[in-house]
């Protein structure tokens, strides 16, 4: 019975909404705005995170010099690569062990949006491609060892000016030709450019030192065996990361700051939206005072009256939430951006307004609306009948 009453009153409410249009519009816009901003910020974080997470595999390891927390500070020798190649746990494959010692550096280039930035440049070994089977060429061809050739990731080609097959870039007095563009499941490698490691080392006079070792395990379960073998070898001062763990950690530290900032902004905006909703609902209750008093005089109890106010509030905020999510999706989903990664070079990613995020946005809107409707609903329930009727 109370539910029926509530719905009956609510139906009348909503029909009379057009008389309170401007005030209602304010609440809808306020909530839409909050949801838009929060979903946009979170989709930024989500996009960055997914790019990083997809980069790491559980059956691959990344080996850095002990104490380093990124490929930037590596100082690994080729001798160490040979020692590591003999350790148990690596995948079996033909003649060459699935292990590659790589050089990580970057190139300072102008970007398409006029922000100069660092393009990661990875000097790879011939085995690098076997170690990373998810990589495939989408334009042009693979580079050949011993030549001044580059292949660039799909996202890097988008973000930086002049990175197309057949073009050249000049680095430290040497000229490199771009021979291909590659994709790799939207991972962080798509923000990089790759060159032949040996040629790079000689051209840049880097001496014998490598930045990192990447290797393919026999299986994900072989990780502990491999790691222990490395740790117990006194010739090696190396730290072994499961690749998926390494990128997961990067993801959380990159997005951590963004989430905190988003949280602070979101809280403030949420408060503002609640105030807007409160304002709208209080004025709705005021405008309907004679009507509410009449309902009470007729015998409707407090609960359906309260319920109807809450329904109106949630209804308005639901509209606002949907508008906000729709706008966020239309404007931001798939939007390409890039930011400073852990290695001080650019990581390109795409904003991702996922269904989960959309649902969260709408849910948030309803919560804000319910909070904003609560006190006015209580006021409506407590309205003194006689005074209310006199106002009619």
């Amino acid at each position, binding site marked *: 019975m109370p539910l029926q009453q509530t719905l009956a009153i609510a139906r009348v409410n909503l029909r009379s909404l057009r008389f309170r249009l*401007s005030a209602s519009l*304010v609440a809808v816009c306020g909530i839409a705005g909050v949801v838009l901003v929060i979903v946009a910020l979170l989709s930024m974080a989500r996009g960055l995170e997914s790019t990083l997470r997809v980069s790491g595999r559980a059956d691959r390891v990344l080996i850095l010099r002990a*104490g380093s927390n990124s490929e930037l*500070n590596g100082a690994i020798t080729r001798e160490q690569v040979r020692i590591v190649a003999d350790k148990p746990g690596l995948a079996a494959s033909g003649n060459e062990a699935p292990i590659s010692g790589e050089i990580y550096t970057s190139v300072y280039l102008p970007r398409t949006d006029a922000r100069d930035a660092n393009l990661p440049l990875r000097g790879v070994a011939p085995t690098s491609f076997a170690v990373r089977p998810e990589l495939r060429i989408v334009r042009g061809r693979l580079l050949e060892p011993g030549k001044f050739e580059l292949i660039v990731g799909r996202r890097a080609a988008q973000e930086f000016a002049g990175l197309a097959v057949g073009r050249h870039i000049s680095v430290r007095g040497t000229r490199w030709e771009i021979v291909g563009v590659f994709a790799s499941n939207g991972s962080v490698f798509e923000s990089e450019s790759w060159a032949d490691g040996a040629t790079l080392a000689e051209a840049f006079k880097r001496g014998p*030192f490598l930045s990192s070792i990447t290797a393919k395990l026999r299986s994900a379960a072989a990780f502990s065996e491999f790691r222990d073998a490395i740790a117990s070898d006194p010739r090696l001062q190396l730290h072994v990361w499961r690749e998926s763990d390494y990128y997961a950690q990067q993801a959380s530290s990159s997005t951590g700051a963004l989430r905190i900032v988003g949280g602070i902004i979101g809280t403030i*905006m949420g408060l503002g939206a609640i105030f807007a909703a*409160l304002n709208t609902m209080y004025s709705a209750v005021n405008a309907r005072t004679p009507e509410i008093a009449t309902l009470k005089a007729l015998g409707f109890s407090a609960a359906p009256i309260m319920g109807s106010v809450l329904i109106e509030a949630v209804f308005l905020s639901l509209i606002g939430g949907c508008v906000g999510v729709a706008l966020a999706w239309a404007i931001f989903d798939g939007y390409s951006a890039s930011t400073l990664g852990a290695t001080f070079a650019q990581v390109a990613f795409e904003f991702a307004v996922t269904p989960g995020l959309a649902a969260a946005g709408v849910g948030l809107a309803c919560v804000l609306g319910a909070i904003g409707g609560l006190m006015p609903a209580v006021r409506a329930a407590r309205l003194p009948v006689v005074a209310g009727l006199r106002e009619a």
Partner: protein
Amino acid sequence: MNHFKLVITALRRQRMRTGLTIASLVTAFALLGLLQPVRELFTQRSSLAGAGRLAVLPKHSIADFLPVRAAARIRDLPQVRGVAHRTWFGGTFRDPKNTFARWAVPPAEFLALHPEIVLSDAQRDAFVRTRTGAIVGKATAEKYGLKVGDNVTLVPDIWGNKNGGTWEFQLVGIFELENAAAAPVDMFLNYEYFDEARVWGRGLVSYITVGLDDPNAADSVAAQIDALYANSDAETRTASEQEYALSFARQIGNVGLIVAGILGAVFFTIAMLAANTMSQAIRERTAELAVLRTLGFQRARVFVLVLAESCAMTLLGALSGLVVAQLLIGSLASVSAQLGAARIGPATLGWSVALAAIIALLAGVPPAWRASRMRIVDALRRSG
């Protein structure tokens, strides 16, 4: 009782509605006060970097190096007052999570070029003379309980020690910074000792700092340096220290645009809310305003009264919002020390005044106009 009081008491009419509108204004301006300084940090020159100093970086990667002999060559260029260099030491101090910057520098030249580093004469001397000397910023010293005379042990990551194992330095000084915009956090180590003992990379430095006789010569000296090393294996990218900090911030992303977008959405909504409130409020008080007209208040006076009410409401919200923002800026420090250094400066205040004025006008002018143009007789009759 005067005109001012008339305006203020009018605000007390519908307390709930006015209060909520002011609360919304507070949140909008709190957001402005919080985000605008952050935006400034990312897009404008901060007073952190020294005026008139250039930073000479390896062109392609901050992980690259420059040869130390480049410093001597640069010193000979015209307009150059002095040079110093820094090398990123990295390593671990006690716990890998303790991330404060650790650099190897030539003590005498470095201190000469960085007058903002405040150190007692005795400690200054000690740093120059002590072969394994190190100085650290006051904030870090306090955080880890370091005192002058303590041993500092660093576990290497990039730079192995020829003499095996860890690096041992002696803390000979604790410095403060003259510039309040930054906190004294860094640690500086003696370069000569470091250079001799490191396993590899002899004579390599991370970047070179150049002091100028005349700050206006910055561009030409920078161009000279980059030309000197163009197409060599030590290509350089020279810019003022401020510009370097700026370009770094730019690489994080178009923060300015994001902030502007957020604030735009917020203020649009708030302006709507304020306008709605004011017009409702005035509509309910038509009879009162008509009475003022009967008393002899001119149309213009009534207009100004209503507009003043809108301005008072907006001003109250704006000021309170900025105060709240100032309090919240402290909380940004939990995200990063840099963000915590944001300050509400003239640009933020300027934006606040402008936005408050726009909202006050948008919300106040239409009802003020309607109120001043109303026919007295109709307005009185409508409410008995």
